[in-house]
């Protein structure tokens, strides 16, 4: 009998080997290892079919194509679209060529970006901000005028700032998935390309609000939340309600006792897994509408966790890992039995620091 289970492929990313199923992309394999290794993604969005390959933020170098053909790939490849092969060796942050390419990508993405972060509602949870913070420069070499567009309203709840758009096509794929007809797309070419709804037609779909969550920048924003507050002053709380159209699982963003925004829940890659309907998002903004589950876990490095004090806040494990790595056990060879002292329990003589042990997940 042959084993019906598909053979697992071994990939090495930044020196860390991981076993994945055939058909997995490099990005997904890297995400399986952890956030330190995962390449940044501006356009790839796992729940959206067909997304990826547009922004080139996730470029990696493949140092060995596979175990059978260990030649390196000639150019950097987009890790969100390239499937892994057995014995593949990928260099992500360990390769200066990749870092250099990413610095260039940031510069290109910011060419026409208005840099109006102090005004933009997305600031604080913006993928482009994070990406530019990791890879960008503080100055610009661009001297021409940036492209400008008028603000546009897509339906009664969504506002489009085309100036901020990086043309990742995530919202287009979202609109394609939630509707039968094609109502949302990119018009024009090159510098003049523009996200648009045909003949200024508003998306009347019940799930159209999800384009706000999907947008990596502040191009599509919630009009009911417009300039209400900065994200780092609001408190995210997980809640759910019985919704006939969607799963009803959301994050409520509180300012004091007031719900000022409702979004879908995002995973650690900033991706929405369960899309929510417009009724949940825009029309039920009272605490009494929801069943509160508890505070949302916010990453310690996120600005949203600033000025929020919680006992169970997870501290970064970096300090503990460093202490564990630098800890030298003390070689105390003295014969304790000869000293006429009270015998201490053996755990008092533990050779490793209790704090140096990795916290259990």
């Amino acid at each position, binding site marked *: 009998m042959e084993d019906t289970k598909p053979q697992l492929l071994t990939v090495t990313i930044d020196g860390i080997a991981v076993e994945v199923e055939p058909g997995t992309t490099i990005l997904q394999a890297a995400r399986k290892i952890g956030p330190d290794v995962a390449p940044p993604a501006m356009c790839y969005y796992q729940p959206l079919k067909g997304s990826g390959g547009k922004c080139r933020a996730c470029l990696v170098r493949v140092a060995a194509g596979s175990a059978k053909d260990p030649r390196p790939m000639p150019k950097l490849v987009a890790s969100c679209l390239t499937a892994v092969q057995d014995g593949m060796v990928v260099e992500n942050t360990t390769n200066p060529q990749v870092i250099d390419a990413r610095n260039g990508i940031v510069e290109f993405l910011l060419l026409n970006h208005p840099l*109006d*972060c102090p005004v933009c509602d997305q*600031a604080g949870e913006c993928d482009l901000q994070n990406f530019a913070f990791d890879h960008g420069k503080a100055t610009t070499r661009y001297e021409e005028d940036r492209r400008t567009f008028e603000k546009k309203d897509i339906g009664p709840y969504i506002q489009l700032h085309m100036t901020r758009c990086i043309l990742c096509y995530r919202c287009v794929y979202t609109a394609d998935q939630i509707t039968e007809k094609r109502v949302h797309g990119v018009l024009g070419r090159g510098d003049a390309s523009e996200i648009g709804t045909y003949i200024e037609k508003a998306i009347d779909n019940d799930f159209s609000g999800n384009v706000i969550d999907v947008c990596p920048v502040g191009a599509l924003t919630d009009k009911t939340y*417009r*300039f209400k*507050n*900065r994200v780092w002053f609001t408190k995210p709380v997980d809640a759910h309600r019985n919704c006939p159209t969607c799963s009803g699982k959301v994050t409520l963003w509180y300012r004091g006792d007031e719900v000022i925004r409702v979004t879908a829940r995002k995973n650690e890659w900033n991706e929405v897994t369960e899309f929510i309907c417009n009724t949940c998002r825009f029309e039920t903004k009272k605490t009494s509408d929801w069943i509160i589950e508890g505070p949302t876990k916010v990453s310690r490095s996120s600005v949203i966790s*600033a*000025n929020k004090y919680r006992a169970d806040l997870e501290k970064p494990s970096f300090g503990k890992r460093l202490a564990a790595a630098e800890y030298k056990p003390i070689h105390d060879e003295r014969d304790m039995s000869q000293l006429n002292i009270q015998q201490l329990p053996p755990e008092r003589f533990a050779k490793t620091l209790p704090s140096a042990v990795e916290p259990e997940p």
Partner: protein
Amino acid sequence: MQLTNRAKQVSNKEMTLAEKMYLPAVVGGLAITIKHFFRKKPTIQYPEVKKYLGPIYRGHHVLKRDEQGRERCTACGLCAVACPAEAISMVAAERKKGEEALYREEKYAAVYEINMLRCIFCGLCEEACPKQAVYLRHDRMVPVFLERDEVIYGKDRLVESLDDRYIRKNSEVATTPTEPSLTRSTT
């Protein structure tokens, strides 16, 4: 019995009348007093006279206006998140048509409050501000307050008035790339 040979013989002899008057010491002390009487006085008669505290003194907060008199603050909240004492709070509002002469950006601070009881005058808000809107004046201090309801300074006391502009010449202050004057983007 003598333990060491460092012991000293003391005499208990009574002083003479001239010695009892301590005249040289009294005259010497008086001379010092008279010398100080004619000296230049180091005391500054605060609050009538105020000392210059230097160009980097961190005093009264000011919300700057730009060259055209528009408020620079765009209520981005970076000062409030940088503030270690959590003294700053604000409410943002959208600029309406016709208010372009009042506010520089499409968003502005409708309410901007600093709690002066909480403020520790560290200047981190000034450092955090991407729009060069909030400054701590080097020439003015926050006055003493007597009532608790005087401590929360709103925009009425923070925004600089056009006839009392605050100018600080500091060549080290560079504009950030997010400043519209540098990037030339219009929103």
